[in-house]
């Protein structure tokens, strides 16, 4: 395009661009949802409720950030939720074996990272579809968790963890602050480092990335390890939240983490991503259940309402046309 063919206003350009809006579906949806819920029930935006919503969203945010890296390479990690379960069980076993808090936390993170690394290695070296490998890991990690824990939950009473779960700065609980730090770091990693560019290139066109000498295998291994590591961090927050390390799988986190990513405007085909989008997607999903509960919507109607809102949030962007 020559200079003559370019309209001058740069700002206008972004706001009239459909792609821009499509990427921010989640944000628009979140704002609308908040307005509706606040009108219907004024306690929705009370500081207490905002604080508890944020805490409730923290784990999902962290998992969604990990999932974003994987999805940016064009993959999908179906095992995040059960790797988190595995991390939690490892934490529980370590704690009862007297490794102490720090040792147990390390245990959880290392277990998560190793599971992620295994995913990445099998996908990169074995050249098997992400879907099948992580589906296998979903099963294998929950099996390993069951075996380790012998099927029984371990109650963990630790004052530090309890403070972690309930304390914070202002309306931001500690889990929220941890999630924010992780999201900011992830944004930096994705958009301000060579590694991040290579992640996007791998997702955009593995062929082209390979041709420029990027080792897409190594990139894949790295993103799955990141997803596993973050699942391990999620496990620690989960234990702080529910006060126990349980071997039962948290299936809802799986679909919700992918939903947050997609609602956040990240294409499952890979190559384009944001971190803010999935974070807002996670907040949207959390606000949705919170609001429906506050409004006292009957249990039977909640799934229907969730389904409709999710589709509407995605449809929203289309009206911008």
């Amino acid at each position, binding site marked *: 395009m020559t200079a003559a063919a370019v309209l001058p206003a740069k700002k206008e350009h972004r706001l009239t661009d459909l792609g821009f809006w499509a990427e921010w579906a989640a944000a628009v949806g979140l704002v609308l949802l908040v307005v509706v819920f606040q009108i219907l029930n004024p306690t929705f935006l009370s500081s207490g409720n905002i604080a508890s919503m944020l805490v409730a969203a923290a784990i999902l945010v962290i998992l969604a950030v990990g999932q974003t890296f994987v999805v940016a390479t064009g993959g999908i990690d179906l095992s995040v939720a059960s790797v988190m379960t595995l991390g939690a069980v490892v934490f529980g076993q370590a704690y009862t074996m007297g490794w102490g808090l720090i040792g147990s936390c390390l245990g959880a993170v290392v277990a998560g990272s190793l599971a992620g690394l295994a995913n990445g290695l099998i996908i990169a070296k074995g050249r098997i579809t992400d879907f099948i490998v992580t589906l296998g890991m979903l099963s294998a990690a929950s099996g390993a968790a069951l075996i380790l824990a012998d099927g029984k*939950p371990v109650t963990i009473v630790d004052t530090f963890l309890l403070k972690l779960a309930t304390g914070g700065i202002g309306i931001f609980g500690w889990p929220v602050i941890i999630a924010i730090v992780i999201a900011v770091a992830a944004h930096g990693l994705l958009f301000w480092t060579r590694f991040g560019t290579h992640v996007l290139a791998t997702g955009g066109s593995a062929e082209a990335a390979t041709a420029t000498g990027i080792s897409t295998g190594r990139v894949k291994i790295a993103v799955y390890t990141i997803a596993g590591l973050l699942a391990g961090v999620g496990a620690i927050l*989960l234990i702080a939240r529910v006060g*126990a390390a*349980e071997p039962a799988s948290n299936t809802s986190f799986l679909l919700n983490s992918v939903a947050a990513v997609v609602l956040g405007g990240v294409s499952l085909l890979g190559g384009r991503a944001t971190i803010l989008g999935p974070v807002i997607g996670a907040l949207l999903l959390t606000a949705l259940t919170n609001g429906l509960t*506050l409004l006292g919507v009957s249990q039977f109607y909640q799934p229907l309402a969730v389904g409709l809102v999710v589709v509407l949030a995605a449809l929203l962007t289309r009206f911008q046309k």
Partner: protein
Amino acid sequence: DEGTTAGGDAKVAAVIKGLDNPFFQSMEAGINDQAKTSGTTVTVQAANSISDTTGQADKLTGLAGQDFGCYIVNPISGTNLIQGIAQLAAQKKTIVNIDSPVDAEAAKAANATPATYIGTNNVSAGQKAGEQMLTLLPGGGKVAAIGGTAGDVTSGARVEGFTTAVTGKLELVQTVAANWERQEALTQATNILRAQPDLAGFFVANDDMGLGVARAVATAGKTGQVKVISVDGIKDALEAVKAGQVDAVVAQYPYAIGQMGMEACQAAAKGATLPASVEAPVEVVTKENADKALAATPKPFGEYADPFTSLIG
């Protein structure tokens, strides 16, 4: 410990387990019916599914910020609701724990002991089923257990109770997980029948799966020959007992549990001191008493002690 609000506000919130299971629907009905007869308002929320621990926790924290006077909680695991309960305790709200107990140690750490606990111990329900199995199989034999989701607390407790009751007398050959799904239970039971041609009985962790297992036994042409015992006491299962497809059901009466939970809130609102723990009724339904059980369902057919009726006068 009383922990009531001074004004006697009886607005009640309840957080129970997944409503996709008739057991908890019956519990909800008990809560709602009692609220209606006494003119109290109640909001009942349930987890999305029986394994949705964090979702349930989110629901309780969502309700905790509102102006209810009394909270009925039925936690999925011993500790998953502990944060919300701590929040409630700090606000000096009444907490009534029904069905599954809140972990005592965790409750103490959170400075939040529920005002009362109403429920049946799942271990003892499993035990009752085990004892019934022993009477059905006086000559011993092989039995298998079908649990819910692997690692699930309720399922674990029921199977554990059953196992302790039959250890040494029956041979428990296999325990499988069927995810609380009837279809899955049917498939797994079919497989087990194939692997163990001389199997004498199934213990099933809930009625819905129990009906699937009964189907598998019927398809194999072994009804009556292979005993089926399940836990819960939903209506369909009682009918199946009557029809002879299921041999016995250990009924736990969630309706009565819900009703008593609501009564406890009313009593607390009146300023009464609540008993620390109330045993809910459990009955073993067999072909002999199936008619009586069906006629009374969702209430227990036998007598049971309800300490709250006197408290709310």
